[in-house]
């Protein structure tokens, strides 16, 4: 049965992904599926110390290893330039230091050499034969060690209003609590990979990238060549979760190596180094001080966050980004600081700032509500902001109260017994928890091109990416909606810098950014078509162009209709084309998305087993463009939030900063068997027409925000234990754990 959606009405329906079949049958090419003629393969030699210098390299054995073409390192690498790393200029990278720039080692798993050989296996075998002599320094292995050793540096995104400190002391109720979150690693299924080929001074690179245009700009700066000499292609990626927003050192290494040896080079980052040299969500420590009046109304709120960053770059995890505006509070301080540790540079991971930040904020709100003797839901209802007090702007559209109430109703919040540990089922103690979720709505500049072709198809191009979220499909829906063409007649091409410039796939802004551009380009193509129809040779030669209507592929004038294909064929034209360039959001309103999670956990104290058994989430993200892919985004984010709540942590050896569990077996993410039996996602679907013509705000990230807090709050309700340090490992809930004599 066809699930084709024809014409107007395509927006808001739920067609399957148009790229789905190619993906599940293996026909979709990913970066490392490319093996150009004469390609060579690179394999990295990665530092085994976290801090120090490379004192010497012994390359003899590796050079004699079969198939080796060249070995690059800090004394044998072309002189390149750094990227200024500006998002506005279109050349942002997270780690500005170039690979092999000098002999310094800033983190374990840093490239210290690159072996290039005729096969992957030969490159890997030779890489293992490279001897590296290090001069090792004491590593700064974690946040506490960083603060002790070098203190903190001021970050951005800070905010202050009123007098938070002055209104804290003497308030009716107050809490002063500190939350911590560990390093989390994105762990997309597809590993980072580059396949770089040069023709003269022109570079083509296949990359698993969430931002081909930014990578093009960064490579242009690094190699000192014009951007138009560089083509970055990333038509399919095995997800990224933020790890692939900005180019990492491997892409520079592969491109430079390819130029040096005069052959294409493929370089895949091994899974172990996906934990070290391609970003991660940093460790955070967040002090929360909240106070209310006797009625439970917030009078003071302070959210002070420190996160780890590298010694090469400052990355700020803006944990207080939501705190500024979610609740009404006249006296509020948000501050961000960083501390340097011997790890690679962190980067955005799904809902950067908000995911760890809302763990702290929404846990603290729960604690504050209980301290003030108010039901946590009622407490939120009493304190949700009516307007954005940090920007002094109205929200464009905010239905958080309805979201909270609808989810609460469906979940059965009001029927709960609020006493800790009071709800039981067999061996299990049941806990209910809730948390708000929140994410900013962003819209960027974008270009797109649409051709309505004489063969009855449409062809759409934009240099944005589909990172598994459904961008291909919603773009096709948009064109279908405006032209009446069935979806299968619409070809969408993304992920290639030879197309009109599109945005990085991040920030949940792809939908709100690309659809207006695609729509504008479609309308321009239709205008061009009307121009042909009303020209001297046209079907409506006497008519004014604006007197024609276009619906379901038909141009109509005065009750006479003609198929657009016939208009083109009649004049021997291949296509009618439109190119559009749309702008980012204005600042008339505060544009944000809202929602609430309700979570049921079951704690079996007899076997110390914690599981999430039920989730109801109501999400207000404006209009939903594709009900299937939208729901899938929220469900996926809920599962990722569940992993954040009770499994995920990249552990580092405190003695030397080495990552310990850098593999898929020991870095624990949720598997199918961990999915809650019931996940109920309510999409409110109120169009936000102040934001864009589609009323859509984007949906990729909001679902993970607040999830960890909702779980932690439910755990408190079940067990009476307030877990302020993620993840909620079972031992944090267990009794009678014997003390360990320190060795």
């Amino acid at each position, binding site marked *: 049965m066809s699930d084709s959606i024809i014409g107007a009405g395509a927006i808001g329906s739920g067609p399957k992904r148009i790229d789905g079949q190619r993906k599940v049958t293996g026909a979709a090419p990913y970066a490392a599926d490319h093996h150009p003629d004469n390609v060579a393969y690179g394999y990295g030699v990665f530092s*085994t110390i976290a801090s120090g210098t490379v004192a010497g390299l012994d390359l003899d054995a590796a050079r004699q290893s*079969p198939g080796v073409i060249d070995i690059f390192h800090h004394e044998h690498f072309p002189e390149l330039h750094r990227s200024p790393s500006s998002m506005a200029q279109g050349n942002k990278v997270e780690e500005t230091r170039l690979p092999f720039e000098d002999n310094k080692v800033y983190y374990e798993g840093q490239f210290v050499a690159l072996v290039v050989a005729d096969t992957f*296996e030969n490159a*890997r*075998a030779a890489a*293992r034969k490279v001897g590296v002599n290090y001069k090792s320094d004491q590593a700064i292995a974690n946040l506490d060690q960083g603060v002790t050793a070098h203190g903190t540096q001021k970050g951005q995104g800070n905010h202050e209003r009123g007098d938070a400190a002055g209104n804290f002391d003497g308030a009716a109720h107050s809490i002063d609590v500190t939350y911590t979150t560990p390093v989390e690693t994105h762990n997309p299924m597809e590993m980072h990979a580059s396949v770089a080929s040069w023709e003269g001074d022109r570079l083509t690179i296949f990359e698993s990238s969430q931002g081909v245009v930014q990578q093009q700009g960064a490579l242009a700066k690094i190699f000192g060549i014009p951007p138009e000499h560089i083509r970055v292609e990333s038509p399919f990626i095995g997800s990224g979760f933020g790890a692939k927003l900005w180019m990492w050192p491997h892409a520079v290494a592969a491109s430079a190596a390819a130029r040096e040896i005069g052959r294409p080079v493929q370089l895949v980052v091994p899974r*172990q180094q996906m934990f070290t040299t391609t970003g991660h969500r940093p460790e955070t420590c967040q002090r929360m001080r909240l106070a209310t009046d006797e009625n439970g109304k917030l009078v003071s709120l302070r959210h002070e966050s420190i996160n780890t960053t590298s010694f090469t770059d400052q990355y700020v995890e803006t944990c207080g980004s939501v705190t500024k505006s979610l609740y009404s509070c006249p006296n509020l301080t948000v501050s961000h600081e960083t501390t340097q540790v011997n790890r690679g540079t962190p980067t955005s991971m799904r809902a950067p700032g908000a995911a760890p930040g809302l763990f702290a904020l929404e846990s603290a709100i729960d604690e504050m509500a209980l301290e003030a003797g108010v039901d946590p839901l009622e407490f939120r209802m009493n304190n949700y902001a009516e307007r954005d007090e940090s920007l002094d702007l109205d929200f464009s559209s905010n239905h958080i109260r309805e979201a909270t109430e609808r989810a609460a109703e469906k979940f059965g919040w009001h029927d709960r017994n609020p006493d800790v540990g009071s709800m039981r089922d067999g061996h299990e103690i049941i806990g209910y928890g809730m948390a708000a979720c929140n994410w900013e709505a962003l819209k960027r500049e974008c270009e797109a091109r649409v051709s309505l072709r004489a063969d009855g198809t449409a062809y759409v191009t934009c240099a944005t990416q589909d990172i598994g979220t459904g961008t291909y499909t919603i773009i096709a829906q948009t064109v279908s909606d405006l032209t009446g063409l069935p979806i299968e007649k619409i070809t969408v091409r993304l992920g290639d810098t030879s197309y009109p410039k599109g945005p990085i796939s991040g920030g949940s802004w792809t939908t709100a950014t690309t659809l207006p551009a695609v729509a504008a380009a479609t309308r321009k193509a239709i205008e061009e078509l009307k121009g042909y129809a009303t020209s001297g040779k046209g079907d409506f030669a006497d008519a004014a162009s604006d007197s024609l209507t276009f619906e379901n592929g038909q141009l109509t004038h005065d009750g006479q209709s003609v198929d657009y294909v016939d208009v083109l064929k009649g004049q021997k034209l291949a296509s009618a084309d439109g190119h559009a360039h749309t702008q980012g959001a204005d600042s008339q309103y505060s544009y944000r998305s809202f929602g609430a999670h309700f979570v049921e956990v079951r704690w079996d104290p*007899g*076997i*110390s*087993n914690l*599981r999430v058994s039920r989730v109801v989430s109501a999400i207000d993200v404006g209009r939903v463009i594709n009900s299937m892919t939208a729901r899938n985004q929220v469900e996926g984010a809920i599962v990722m939030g569940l992993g954040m709540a*009770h*499994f995920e942590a990249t*552990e*580092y*050896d*405190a*003695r030397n900063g*080495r990552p*310990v*569990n*850098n*593999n898929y*077996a*020991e870095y*624990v*993410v*949720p*598997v*199918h*068997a*961990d999915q809650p039996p019931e996940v109920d996602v309510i999409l409110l679907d109120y169009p936000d027409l102040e934001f864009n013509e589609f009323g859509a705000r984007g949906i990729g990230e909001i679902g993970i925000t607040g999830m960890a807090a909702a779980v932690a709050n439910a755990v408190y309700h079940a067990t009476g234990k307030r877990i302020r340090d993620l993840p909620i*490992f*079972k*031992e944090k809930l*267990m*009794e*009678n*754990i*014997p*003390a*360990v004599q*320190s*060795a």
Partner: protein
Amino acid sequence: MHNFDYARADSTRQAVSSHGPDKQAAYLAGGTTLLDLVKIDIMRPEQVVDINRLDLKRIETLNDGRTRIGALVTNTALARDERIASDYAVLSEALLSGATTQLRNKATTAGNVMQRVRCPYFRDGVSNCNKREPGSGCAAIEGHNRSVHAVLGTSEHCIATHPSDMCVAMAAIGATITVEGPEGQREIDFLDFHLLPGDTPEREHALKPGELITHVTLDAPLDNSRSHYLKLRDRASYQFALASSAVIVTLEGDTITDARVALGGVGTRPWRAHEAEAALKGQKATEATFQKAAGIAFKSATPYAHNAFKIPLGQQAIVRNLTTLTA
């Protein structure tokens, strides 16, 4: 990885002869341990002998009631075998709780017995590890030692757990391992096969150089017994046990007449808890009995910085398993 010579054997004798008594050779069955460790350069065999064509893929019931399992029977085939599922439920359950479907389809019975530890310091190729480099020390003892480190059978030289679920069930059932080597065939009691680390953690099993496991023969099932494998971990699937128990009991009324208890995730080898069994036999099946036996099982346990919780967790694995079986 290092390159190696590859030979495919068509008979057990040929396999043993191709391997030779050389420690730098390895038998290849499912490859789920060997190939992983070769690729990350932790195992560097010079010679790999592929035994997948050997006629060792049968499960047979012997006249004396024992069950003989060929070395190459996959974990999936063994778990799904009707006789195993009915007579040795604990083994079937243990197998199905391990790894993933894909891994179980490749992994073999002998390979599971031979799997190597998951200790990250063993696998990183850099840290001090007495298994990988005897005499270098054990980075885990004062390092990060939460999930794949033991509290039972540890030594100052190694604290890695034996990762197998299958072997825990076999330790409870009782079994004999048949091996073929340069000096001929011999049998090894299952409980003597895996060695405690002691002063020689690099010696993990009782095989002599070049010996090949050909069969694992399970003791006859206890008459009128019930058995169950309970595995506790963080996520619900695809994780090594933090603590697990394989329990077999026989009851007369509410009195326990016989009991077998083995533990996983907590010991440096598949851990048979003989003293706990003694504390169960002849006792009423009550929570107090179970608690007492569980306490005995862990009385010699040594907690480390991040895994002390395994001591109460392991006890819970015993108590809940017994509670379920005797309910």
